[in-house]
């Protein structure tokens, strides 16, 4: 009895978390798998349709376009890493007021993404700040319709993501830099390294675990991007679907068009993509940790 009780007690402690996980994670995932095989409009009961939703996915140009956009969005990851490391190096020094600079760079990370998106919408509005500045400097004759230009929607959204993320990720790199022993820099200096060489041969290798970590989370965040697109395009996804990413497409199918069954199939496709990414990333992470 004692042995049994000893075995059960850990599960008792785990039970609250497991129950919540079961209700809010496992069951919804199973439900979505089920819905993906149905024609479901949310209002009326789902009707089984077999593999129809998955067949439709294969022929759906908008779905493939959304995947293409999501993959393009991954470009933010290397840019974020480079800029965040540079910023971390800049603020990793003892100087008066440096804490204020560090806090300022972190402000976007603690601001609501919808609020940031709205602010950027005003920036890029036809009568917004950017056009006003360009007009006053004589660089343009008439206001540019930035967000109505299909080739500009995705770059502006990516720029927003980078701007909002660089402060957050630089904190991670800053922590990494501060963990690198000063002796290594001293040794590099003695070996004749200049400042750039010092960071190339000491800082970057020392930051490898953080780089891998940031690559993982920022690429997954990029795959899941929604707020920026939702706000910047006024819930449309942009002219000619120019800003539609896979999560936006999923949302639109489920909650605008009312094709929740089809949206569930899109969600399953997204799950497959993120799982592949996760597996690849975990491999890199493990290798990075092993070598660090």
């Amino acid at each position, binding site marked *: 009895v004692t042995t049994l009780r000893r075995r059960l007690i850990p599960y008792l402690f785990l039970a609250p978390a497991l129950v919540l996980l079961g*209700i*809010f*994670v496992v*069951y*919804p995932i*199973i*439900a*979505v798998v089920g*819905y993906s095989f149905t024609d*479901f*409009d*949310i*209002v*009326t009961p789902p009707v089984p349709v077999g593999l129809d939703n998955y067949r439709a996915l294969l022929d759906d140009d908008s779905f493939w376009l959304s995947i293409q956009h999501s993959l393009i969005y991954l470009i933010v990851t290397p840019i974020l890493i480079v800029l965040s490391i540079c910023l971390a190096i800049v603020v990793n020094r003892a100087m008066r007021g440096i804490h204020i600079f560090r806090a300022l760079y972190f402000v*976007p*990370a*603690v601001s609501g*993404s919808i609020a940031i998106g709205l602010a950027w919408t005003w920036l890029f*509005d*036809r*009568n917004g700040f950017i056009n006003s500045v360009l007009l006053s400097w004589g660089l343009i004759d008439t206001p540019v*319709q930035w967000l*109505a230009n299909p080739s500009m929607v995705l770059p502006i959204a990516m720029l927003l993501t980078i701007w*909002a*993320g660089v402060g*957050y990720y630089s904190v991670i790199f800053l922590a990494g830099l501060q963990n690198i022993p000063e002796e290594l820099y001293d040794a590099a200096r003695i070996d004749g390294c200049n400042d750039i060489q010092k960071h190339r041969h000491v800082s970057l290798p020392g930051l490898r675990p953080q780089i891998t*970590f940031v690559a*993982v*989370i920022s690429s*997954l*965040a*990029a*795959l*899941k*991007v*929604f707020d*920026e697109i*939702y706000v910047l395009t*006024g*819930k*449309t996804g942009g002219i*000619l*679907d120019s800003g539609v990413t896979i999560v936006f497409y*999923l*949302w639109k199918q*489920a*909650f605008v068009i009312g*094709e*929740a069954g089809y949206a*569930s199939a899109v*969600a*399953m496709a*997204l*799950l497959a993509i*993120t*799982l592949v*990414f*996760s597996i690849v*990333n*975990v491999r890199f992470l493990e290798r990075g940790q092993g070598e660090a």
Partner: protein
Amino acid sequence: VTSRKLLAAGLAMVVLAGACSSAAATPSPAPSTAATTAPTTAPASQPASEAPSESVAPASPTPLAADPAEAVIPNVEQGAEIGFWTFYLSPTFDPYIKDTIARFEATYPGVKVKWEDHQASFKDDLNNAFNAKTAPDVINLSVSEGWVSEYAGKGVLLPLDDKVDQKVKDVYFPGLWKEQLIDGVNFQFPWYQGLNVELLNTAILEKAGFTAETFPKTIDGLPALCQAVKDKAASLCTIRLTISDLLAQMVYEGNVKVLSDDGKKFTFDSPEGVAWLQMYVDMVKAGTVDNTVLTTTDDRVGLNAFIAGGSPFYASGPNLARQVKDQNATLYENLGMVQTPLGKSNVSGKGLMSLSVKGDTKYPNASIALAQFFTNPRAMVEFAKLVPVYPSSQSAFEDPFFASAPAAIEDSARPIAKDIIATYADIVPTVPEKAKVNEIVRKAIESALFGGKGAQEALSGAVAEANGLIK
């Protein structure tokens, strides 16, 4: 837990699953985590002109006394407790709604009403409620956004034609009683109506050589006006396509026959349809319209541009002139208001708001009574006195209030409101697979407007694709 909520949670969790599996101890990335929350919190599209007014706090008049003459629905179930949902009316109109409910309960003793107002999440909430079988008995649905046809098409609303006496039907303007038929059947009591007007920035229009009097009376005149605005006033027109119901816009503006008589084929690639689209294509090519406003689903994008003073006109409701007054006093001094230019159909529009009854209500007569009570002439006149909305019945306009001289520009359409509303009619046929077809049409129209595709090619492609959806 409803299936709808489960779905939202499930979709979000599926998105998260990959992230979670990458590293158990990985903290959530701070930026860009939208997918996990946005689907469940995203506000529904809410046309600015739909809500009577957000900026006005009306004075609470003395509540009307109960009048037995208002009890026109027989056999109301005793002991009925009916749920009632409105859209964007609280807190501004709380006194009016509560007083009217109190009068209804006094008029129909034994019936209790539980009122809730839902706002940005109205449609999500309603979908949830239908899914969980907890939908309210009486629902405030937008006619102009096609919500009545959407829910009636799903079989969740009560057909009213054979449940309401002819003398009760005759209270309403005939065009409004029939403003959103599904296969010839009506599912709504027409409630408060709006007028389709153009708010004018007369300062910009004067620069372009136009006045309120010379503002185009038909949409054919818009391209020339917008060209003049661009050339002479260095501004752009803020015209919004009805992205959520493009076929309806084709019908009203272009007099396009969108569906064959037998309902088996779409026909919106006709010369009329192509001509309608070509007008917008030409304006986009000429660079005379704000493209962001043209294709947005959010009415407030254009309204905000207008209120900021940067556009010559914007189609809206007269009630929203008060937002101009509150937010841009300079523009308010230059504000004009004219009737929206007519399209080739010569029909000025369809109704705005309605009250429908859910199909499986336990108390059909009590629910019908409530929907009828809120839309009767007496209740509607009281509402119209609070805010520039208009009744759905002819007799309501006999109240001296509608003959009184308007004091403010937002009320300037009051004397002609009856004549305008009397012409409202839904001339759009019931479109099968409406949401999917609309998405096909949207893509086609955008490809013509911005993608370089010819109008004929774009619409013919859309017709072929949409025909594939007809079973």
